[in-house]
């Protein structure tokens, strides 16, 4: 079963790479006009066109790309003249760190709220109140929330920095690339608090938007479970209500919640583009949006495939988690 799943991943990658490849070349605008300096001679332009392989037909280009990609060679960025894999992967820890913290914040906020609003169904504060907040959260564009936070917390109250990952002058040994982790591992508390101050706003922005949806789904899943007979059984056994909710109910809701986490990963990856740009966060998302603007095909291709890979990998892991939660599920 598992082997079949793993084999099934390959066509997904092929499909994604083909779609990205073709879309990029179909899109108007070409990298040569944008990246070859203004005033270059026609001969120079043609030389670079040949160097980038863009003088060949699209199917041929795709074939060349596939051949090299299977060997792990994704070429050099048109703009930066550096290997694309290096360029993107060195920015990956920044995006991963932000994503993980956003997910943590979202989960810490959403799951308790979802549980309470289900248990205290129809309560003015705990149900209607929190779900209205959740509705607000899903309606708020992350772009807007991010800028508001920057203006208020960064500008007017002067509490937090407006961008970047670390203030110049703070030294930090690079181990994993996740600054929070690295600073803990090296017991560097100055770097830890500086990194915290930089990451808290973008993580909070992403976290709030995700929490809103997660809370609603947790609530709905919990309500579903609360109505089940086996919950009545648990109660009549004499179990304290807290055990009934947190052990019997929650475990059953977890399947739905875990599904949400998987979907939210997609939101995270897509959202990273906006959040990283607003907060000047040097991750893969901000690189991707710039690369699209420059039509740096190779960077875009690699990044999209990377995102697809991450998405597939995480969802596969979540499937394993399912089997651990719900014994009726077999991978």
């Amino acid at each position, binding site marked *: 079963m598992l082997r079949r799943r793993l084999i099934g991943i390959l066509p997904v990658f092929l499909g994604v790479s083909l779609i990205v490849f073709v879309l990029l070349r179909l*899109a*108007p*605008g*070409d990298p*040569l*006009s*944008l990246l070859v*300096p*203004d*005033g*270059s*001679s026609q001969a*120079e332009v043609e030389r670079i066109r040949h160097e980038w392989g863009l003088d060949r037909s699209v199917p041929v280009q795709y074939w060349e790309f596939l051949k090299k990609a299977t060997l792990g060679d994704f070429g050099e960025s048109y*703009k*930066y*003249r*550096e290997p694309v894999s290096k360029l993107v992967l*060195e*920015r990956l820890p920044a995006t991963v760190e932000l994503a993980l913290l956003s997910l943590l914040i979202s989960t*810490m*906020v959403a799951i*308790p*709220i979802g*549980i*309470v609003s289900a248990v*205290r169904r129809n309560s003015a504060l*705990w149900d209607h109140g929190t779900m209205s907040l959740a509705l607000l959260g899903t309606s708020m564009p992350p772009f807007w929330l991010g*800028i508001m936070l*920057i203006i208020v917390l*960064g*500008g007017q109250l*002067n509490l*937090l*920095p*407006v*961008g*970047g*990952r*670390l*203030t*110049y*002058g703070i030294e930090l040994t690079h181990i994993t690339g996740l600054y929070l982790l690295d600073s803990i591992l090296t017991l560097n*508390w*100055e770097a*830890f*608090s500086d990194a*915290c*101050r930089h990451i*808290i706003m973008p993580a909070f922005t992403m976290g709030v938007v995700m929490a809103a949806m997660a809370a609603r789904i947790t609530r709905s899943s919990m309500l579903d479970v609360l109505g089940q007979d086996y919950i009545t059984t648990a109660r009549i056994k004499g179990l304290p209500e*807290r055990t009934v*909710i947190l052990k019997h109910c929650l475990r059953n809701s977890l399947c739905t919640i875990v599904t949400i986490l998987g979907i939210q990963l997609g939101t995270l990856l897509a959202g990273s583009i906006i959040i990283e*740009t607003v*907060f*000047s966060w*040097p991750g893969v998302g*901000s690189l991707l949006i710039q690369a*699209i*603007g*420059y*039509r740096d095909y190779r960077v875009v291709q690699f990044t999209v495939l990377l995102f697809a890979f991450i998405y597939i990998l995480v969802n596969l892991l979540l499937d394993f988690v399912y089997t651990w939660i719900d014994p009726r599920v077999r991978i």
Partner: protein
Amino acid sequence: MTKRTSVLGSVVGALFALATVMSAVTCGPVQAKEASITVAQSIDVSSLNPYGDINTATFAMWKHIMEPLVLFDFNKRTYYGVLAESWTMKDTEYVFKIRKGIRFHDGNELTAHDVKFSLDQALNSIQAVILKSAIKSVDVVDDHTVRVNTKTPFANLLSRLKHIVIVSQKAHEKWGADIKDHPIGTGPFKFVTWKKGNYFVVAKAGSYWGEPAKLDKIIWRPIQEDASRVTALESGEVDVITAVPTHEVARLEKKPNLRVEKTRALRQLFIALSPRFEPFKNPQVRKAMNHAIDVDYIIKNVLDGMAYRAVGPTGPQHIGYNANIKPYSYDPKKARELLAQAGYPNGFDLKFNSSSGRYVKDREVAQVIADQLGRVGIRTQIVFGEHGTYWSDITKGKVNMYLSGGFNEEDPELFLSLYYETGITPRIGLSDPKFDELLRKERMTMNPAESDKLLQEISAYAYNEMVPTISLWHPVDLYGVNNRLVWKPNPNEEMYFHRAYVK
């Protein structure tokens, strides 16, 4: 009851933990005793290769660490030697005498070999386009003399050379491929560190051959979002920001610790009119369009006065500025007459490609222009384009009427060549032999006074007779600056902090 308290507990606990962490640093960014400043702009260098980028902002950054042969003084309006002490220009030979006794940051002395090495490096990089059309080869005459051989006499060579910084050949030999970790120059600042996407830092060099810098450190940070940059300036996190949004100017100026520096930009906004489009084949039509647009109105009402009307391809800061050209009057009646004479008594339909968000208020400007053209019978349809698509099509000659900005060069020759000269690029596609001849002659005129006169003639001719564009304005570049920093910006958008200091 227990459910509620446990939920409240976990939420409060989490917030508390975060607050504790945050309060661990009670003060904001480190305000050092040293005189350092932070500059926020929207882009970053793409690598530690000084020849790896070709844009204004990065040129300026590298010019703190390394130096070119010459630079242009906007006050005195002449080129002056930086690493070059003197030079002679004759025919196709430019001979530069290199100053003696200048040392690189690693102690080695600057020689002509370094100059040749650097120019060759540039010729093999993305910056080649600046030099290639002019330079044929570079020779070392002696340890302190370099000769640049041009293909044809090229009086504008200095304008090109001012962008090429000089690096150390010995350092390259020593470090080999690792040279990119040791960007060494002769400048008043030395390289400290670069964290991609985060900050680029230079510090005052131990010794400098010229007037030493007054700042201890400069930190450049790339912040793309306008709102973030402005907020960073207000909070004191940065000291200088570029591209202040026009609607923020009044608010920032009210703050006692901030000011907004305004410079008249070299760049000029214009609308290109390509004769590929049938009605534009007739110069009367192009003149009519110039009369149909009320530029002063647009400047006053759309740009809040933050621009200076452009009359011809050059402005007062350019070399060869012609102050005597009369601007086209806003005269819709005359426009209609000209159109009728040209055979379009009922006007015609037009597609106008405008950029969107690239230049200040470009969308609004395009709409006003379309409206004004409509009043003289030219029914205009605006097409807004995403920059990548927009620019690609323009450089391929696929767009017949478009809004664009020019260059930040004090010497208009590059602009005139790329846009007006026959056969160089298809951006406009106008072909005027008299213009070509004048420009060719100008290139060969070594005497600055004479070349100025020629440029003035070219400007007048281009504006009055050729009319390949509608000249709009020179925008006002807006820099947000903290008052602790004493500094004035240049009109070519290159920010130098060599003479800047902190009060």
